[in-house]
């Protein structure tokens, strides 16, 4: 697929039109949806109307994303479209406002072509928790695309759209990006506004970007990053010129590698791809240093206490009163709440709400929640110490390539352990990026992950860009748009 910069230039110069570009993306989305189930809504009418307006607009040359088609995870609010969060409890809920990231994208000429499928309320690592059926991996449709932003990852991997947005609470952008062979960026906590993103774990959630390459991810981050008065957790930190930083020169940059993270539980092919990537960075002139994150082994335990505690509180708002689904035949208010939530939520969401309720309940708060927040401090200190020695830490994104549907669905803990490399970034609030670094013998994508200090997205994108330029992957998935 063409780069965003080329796509936009073609439209601005009149070599093609926004309408043609958007119609091509819509056609592909519709044609491949039976096979991939990547979209929960495809918004043809609105998207074509908007593209026509962009073509006719006198100021289109000033729009940095003029005519660029984008897909949005169905937990980010876009007016005129549904926001289901992959859940029956919201169903065809239509939000009355745009998320800040959407306002910013629309202001630069981007066009939303539809809402992508995801695990219910972004809870899952395989997309099997969507109430509307799982997304299929374009590289092998008998395998999961990863989760929770599986639809966005698959839509980019299959060449339907050049870029998409997802959300990342414990790896939900980076993990599906790795399994689908695309770039996935989770920014620093507070870099991008969460206003209009349906909350799951408020101290962990960030909107993230999917793209085929680091340059396109940089262009999108440039538009969506920055302080937003509607989200008090966005920080007043200047937004650098990300695309300008991608000069390919990573000589002398220090990459941290932890041997402990390349040991037990890691698939042999993933380990060997990561070792090759480390050598590739050496060839580019980067320096490899040993780092130690002694508390990383506890990250999954900490994450599943904090994330479920926050989820149990955030999801209390879905009660059948103000929006979404309401169960029928409940004689009193309390019965209506309980029946609505029982019929509206799927098993994984209930499991997490209950776990979160348990760890916050009287008598257990100190033993679980407070303990987890203390270990989170220790993990943050591990990262701060490691970043004194390096500019970024290189790890695998996932322990294995894409697994088969049904493989882990009955074993929640095994599913959670799939996030072992990604949850640390959310707990520490640091940015992370997953970059494709090869295919397994079975032809499945493998991803490397780079984690950096707070606000170091420019360095991560620069490192990703340099690697991709030197080590391009030319293979395409069997399910592809053209």
């Amino acid at each position, binding site marked *: 697929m063409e780069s965003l910069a080329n796509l936009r230039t073609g439209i601005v110069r009149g070599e093609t039109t926004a309408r043609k570009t958007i119609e091509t993306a819509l056609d592909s989305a519709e044609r491949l949806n039976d096979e991939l189930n990547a979209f929960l809504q495809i918004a043809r009418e609105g998207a074509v109307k908007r593209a026509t307006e962009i073509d006719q607009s006198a100021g289109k040359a000033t729009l940095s994303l003029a005519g660029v088609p984008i897909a949005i995870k169905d937990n980010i609010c876009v007016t005129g479209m549904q926001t289901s969060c992959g859940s029956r409890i919201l169903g065809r809920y239509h939000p009355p406002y745009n998320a800040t990231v959407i306002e910013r994208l629309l202001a630069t000429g981007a066009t939303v072509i539809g809402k992508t499928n995801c695990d219910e309320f972004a809870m899952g690592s395989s997309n099997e928790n969507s109430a509307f059926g799982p997304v299929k991996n374009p590289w092998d449709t008998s395998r999961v695309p990863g989760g929770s932003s599986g639809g966005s990852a698959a839509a980019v991997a299959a060449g339907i759209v050049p870029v998409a947005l997802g959300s990342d609470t414990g790896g939900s952008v980076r993990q599906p990006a790795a399994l689908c062979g695309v770039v996935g960026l989770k920014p620093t906590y507070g870099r991008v506004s969460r206003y209009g993103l349906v909350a799951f774990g408020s101290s962990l959630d960030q909107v993230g970007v999917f793209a085929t390459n680091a340059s396109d991810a940089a262009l999108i981050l440039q538009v969506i990053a920055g302080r937003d008065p509607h989200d008090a957790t966005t920080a007043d930190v200047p937004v650098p010129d990300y695309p300008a930083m991608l000069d390919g020169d990573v000589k002398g940059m220090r990459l941290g590698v932890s041997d402990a993270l390349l040991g037990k539980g890691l698939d042999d092919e993933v380990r060997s791809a990561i070792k090759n990537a480390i050598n590739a960075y050496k060839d580019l002139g980067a320096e490899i240093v040993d780092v130690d994150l002694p508390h990383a082994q506890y990250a999954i*335990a900490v994450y599943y206490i904090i994330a479920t505690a926050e989820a149990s509180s955030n999801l209390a708002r879905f009660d059948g009163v103000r*929006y979404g689904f309401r169960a029928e035949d409940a004689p009193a208010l309390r019965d209506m709440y309980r029946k609505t939530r029982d019929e509206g939520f799927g098993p994984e969401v209930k499991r997490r709400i*209950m776990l979160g*309720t348990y760890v916050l309940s009287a008598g257990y708060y100190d033993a679980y929640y407070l303990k987890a927040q203390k270990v989170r401090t220790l993990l943050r200190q591990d990262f701060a110490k490691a970043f004194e020695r390096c500019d970024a830490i290189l790890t695998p994104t996932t322990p294995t390539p894409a697994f088969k549907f049904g493989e882990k669905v009955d074993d929640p803990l095994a599913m959670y352990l799939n996030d072992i490399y990604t949850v640390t970034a959310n707990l520490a609030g640091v940015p992370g990026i997953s970059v494709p670094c090869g295919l397994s013998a079975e032809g499945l994508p493998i991803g490397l992950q780079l984690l950096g200090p707070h606000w170091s997205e420019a360095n991560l994108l620069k490192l990703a860009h340099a690697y991709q330029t030197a080590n391009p992957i030319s293979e395409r998935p069997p399910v592809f748009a053209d």
Partner: protein
Amino acid sequence: MPITESDIEKIALLAHLDITEAERKMFAPQISEIVAYVEQLNAIDTSAVQPALGGLTPEGEQTESSRPDEVQPSLGQKLALDQAPDGASGHFRVPKVLG
């Protein structure tokens, strides 16, 4: 600590979930296993550690997030009620509160 089916029943009540017997039987061993897994944290000495409440970076903590106390436009009653399962005369109508 093992989580029994009666614990699950109690948690479901606190969480406003009307779970079925089948769900109760499924959740009890699964949540027990997860709780046993997270209890590995007890091995870490955290007596001198401050809890990390919230996810803010140091720069985020320093960011001034209040605004002048001035009225700003809001959704309005019609739009706010637009998606309600049972909106009536400018209100959200619900089943009776007292049994």
